[in-house]
């Protein structure tokens, strides 16, 4: 029976104390008149429960920056400042706002909706210098998000033959490779995480099962008992140097992944012989010339190439190319060899917000791997010095059910936002979005087109 894919969401409160965006300071000259309590509709100001003659300390995380209390204070005893914990929360593409947004999405599972117009920087590097297209009047849109029209978010992982061969009797001669269909273009990847525990892994696995997607985990990580026979969605990832001829592989894995190395050809051949039904993926760190590496892998018949970028979404090494440009180069190289549809590209690293999923897909990835965003959904505080023992929120003590629910909320919210973008573009399925560069707007292009007659600027859209 046909069942429409749906991510069930429910409100899952955080375990850690909320991080206030603003700090309200009450100076000594407060006369406890209580006008702030009347002014605030969010409950920041309350009388002290111990001593009702006095005002309690402001509940900063409820403050929404409306300035009503400051405006109404007859003593001018109140002042507001940006929350210092909030400001120090993020860095690079992982801005404090994005991290707080992920916390919210993981808590509610809902699309963040706010009043007032856009309030950030005009544009920026990487995905910030890119807009998606929309349709109106001359092209139809899709009204997908409220379920009034169906938009598919399914993608295929695996190799697809470019064409089918039949013999004279009409019998199919092409041997069809294994393909796995995922209902969302997002997979979970925990191979680059620094904190891991049994309960955390159990929660991640439960989320992957619930979402019907894949979990990439280092080979050898074992699921707790009770998950036997369900590990087909767990992808074991073998690091460079593993002897794949003797490596143990869980019997029911549908995909396995090895690292790109000098021996990848022989490794791939050996694995194909040992596990002919299993889809083989090769992970490769993006660096200068990544497009020729991917081309090499694809022409050699590797079904899935998993390209890794750093936390900022940049290539490794000296190059500062962002995945936006890197993926476009890979996509174009494969298209020019007429093999783009035969290989699945998974891209991971620097996916920090819901909009990065459709943008990564537009630039040429089939599937987007979520990594750090998963940890942030579990209220990771994004500390520079991260270790299991110093974790301020005790990440490894999170219960599997809580982990599962938070992750499903995050992915559910991101999928809904993907539907919004697809609907606005008028696309019926996310497969059509991949490499659809003509439906994107790139900063350097519009800057050149619109402002080329205007003096100044370098017209390449780069920040100066």
């Amino acid at each position: 029976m046909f069942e429409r894919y749906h991510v069930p969401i429910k409100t899952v409160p955080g375990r850690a104390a909320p991080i206030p965006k603003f700090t309200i300071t009450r100076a000594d000259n407060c006369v406890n008149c209580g006008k702030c309590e009347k002014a605030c509709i969010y409950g920041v100001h309350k009388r002290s429960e111990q001593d009702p003659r006095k005002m309690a300390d402001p509940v900063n995380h409820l403050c929404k920056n409306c300035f009503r209390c400051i405006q109404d204070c007859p003593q001018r005893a109140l002042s507001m400042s940006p929350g210092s914990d909030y400001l120090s929360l993020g860095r690079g593409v992982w801005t404090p706002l994005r991290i707080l947004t992920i916390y919210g999405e993981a808590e509610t599972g809902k699309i963040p909706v706010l009043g007032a117009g856009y309030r950030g920087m005009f544009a920026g590097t990487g995905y910030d210098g890119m807009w998606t297209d929309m349709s109106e009047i001359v092209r139809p849109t899709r009204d997908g998000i409220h379920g009034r029209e169906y938009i598919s978010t399914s993608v295929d992982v695996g190799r697809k033959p470019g064409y089918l061969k039949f013999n004279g009797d009409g019998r199919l001669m092409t041997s069809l490779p294994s393909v796995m269909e995922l209902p969302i273009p997002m997979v979970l990847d925990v191979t680059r995480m620094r904190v891991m525990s049994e309960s955390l892994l159990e929660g991640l696995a439960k989320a992957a099962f619930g979402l019907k997607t894949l979990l990439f985990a280092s080979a050898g990580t074992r699921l707790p008992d009770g998950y036997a026979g369900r590990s087909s969605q767990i992808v074991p990832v073998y690091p460079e140097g593993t002897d794949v001829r003797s490596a143990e592989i869980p019997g029911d894995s549908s995909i396995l992944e090895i690292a790109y190395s000098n021996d990848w050809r022989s490794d791939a051949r050996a694995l194909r012989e040992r596990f002919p039904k299993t889809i083989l993926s090769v992970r490769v760190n993006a660096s200068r010339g990544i497009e020729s590496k991917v081309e090499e892998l694809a022409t050699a018949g590797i079904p899935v190439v998993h390209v890794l970028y750093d936390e900022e979404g940049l290539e490794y090494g000296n190059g500062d190319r962002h995945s936006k440009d890197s993926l476009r180069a890979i996509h174009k190289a494969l298209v020019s060899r007429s093999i783009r549809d035969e290989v699945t590209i998974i891209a991971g690293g620097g996916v920090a917000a819901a909009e990065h999923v459709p943008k990564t897909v537009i630039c040429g990835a089939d599937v987007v791997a979520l990594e750090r965003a998963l940890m942030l959904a579990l209220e990771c505080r994004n500390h520079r010095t991260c270790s299991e023992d110093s974790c301020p929120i005790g990440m490894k003590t999170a219960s599997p059910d809580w982990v599962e629910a938070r992750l499903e909320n995050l992915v559910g919210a991101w999928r809904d936002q993907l539907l919004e973008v697809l609907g606005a573009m008028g696309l019926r399925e996310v497969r059509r979005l991949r490499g659809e560069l003509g439906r994107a707007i790139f900063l350097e292009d519009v800057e050149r087109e619109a402002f080329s007659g205007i003096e100044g600027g370098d017209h390449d859209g780069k920040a100066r």
Partner: protein
Amino acid sequence: MTTTAKRDDGCPKVVPEADVVPSEHLKFVNRYTVKRADTCISCGMCESLCPYGVHKRVEGHVKILPPDDRKCIGPSCAVNYFFCVANCPTNSLSIGVSDTFISLGDPRWTSEIILATWKQAETGQPLGLDHPGNVGFSGGGFDKLKFKIPDKKGVVPPEDVCTAIDLNRRGSGEKIRIPIPMYGGGMSFGSVSVYTMLARAKAAKKWSTFTCTGEGGYPDALIPYKDHVITQVATGLFGVREETIQRTRIVEFKYAQGAKPGLGGHLLHDKNTPDVARMREAVAYTSLFSPFPFHSVYSVEDHKKHLDWAHAINPKALMSVKVSTPNDVEMVSVGSYYAGAHIVHLDGGYGGTGAAPEIAKKNIAMPIEYAIPKVHRFLVSEGIRDKITLLASGGLRTALDVAKAIALGADGAVVGTADLVALGCVRCGNCESGRGCPRGIATTDPVLDKLTDADWGAERISNLYNAWRLQWCELLSGFEMTDISELRGRTDLLTNGTPKGVAP
């Protein structure tokens, strides 16, 4: 108080007078803060020095009051002999940037712009062309484009400068000329209170320009201002009736909104109070998401059928088409012209909204700065540029933004958020849920909406328009222009950032 004479031939020279509107409650924040350390001995030196009244001691009190830093002029005071910090015998005073000031605003609507807009709404006096409240620091678009303002000032007196534009440039139909190159954008009943709508309508009447109902129906309170209220027909068709289309002079078809291009209007359940629901013919306290798009419009021909239908109901009304800014926005604009539109209103990606998904605001459709030249050039090359009025909106915050939009190729602008800021909005962005705006502007809460007085608001908005007009006059006179239409398409008067080889 005089009102503008509507003349088809010339330019309305008489505009409403500006009067200071009492707005003490909005003076809660200053750029600077003055701190007094515990080492103060309350000698009273600072009180005797400061001419602005920052330092005060109540008669008979021993201790001096905390500094009233709203009146402080900041560190630049150091050049004065009466600078309190330098003269304090115990070195107890310090001046710095106020944390509250930093907490206000964002890169697009900076605290400087908000305070400058409040000041203009209070006094009706324009900003200098080099005031920091003219541009934001978002680092692109209007914040990077700058006018090459010549040194000579006031070559043409403001009363000889014409800032009027025509809304109907086709051969037939009512000629409508508005004395300032802008009108108010659609904000629905539901997203904002009826008092806010009334304030905008009253200001629009005073200025002989327009405001727009938005998609939430036409409250009866606006009927006295019907000659200055545009009826919007949006995809939800909320509250659209034959009589609301018949009583208006301009019908606006909203195909898309800049803040949420490709998505329908959002009114979250909390704000759909019984009054709003009655107007929208919906069930109270349910979330109302308009469909997207008009499911009856999938081509320019369908679009023409839409306009024809409105034309049949009200043959006199001008047709405005509000569209967002996709890649093919120029095709949409030309299509709109051939379907019979008088006004093409481009709403760019960074526009205002009462509620929109955050992902849509930044990421879907291009900013208006890129769309205007694209559409303008295409309309010119199609030979129809002078038969249609091109209005721009979506992130136009100040008078200079409007002037830049015109220099890029628009005829005029549509403004929404600036009106709300004139009413005291701080852009906190909490209009969408709960009781709505805590400041009583974008709310439907029966208690909170009383915070905005429509007459007071109308004066504030009118003052803002006055300040803007004077600023345009100053700009145009610097360029030795006498009519704002001369500015259209003059990209040669702009620079994009700091030109190469020129010191910033």
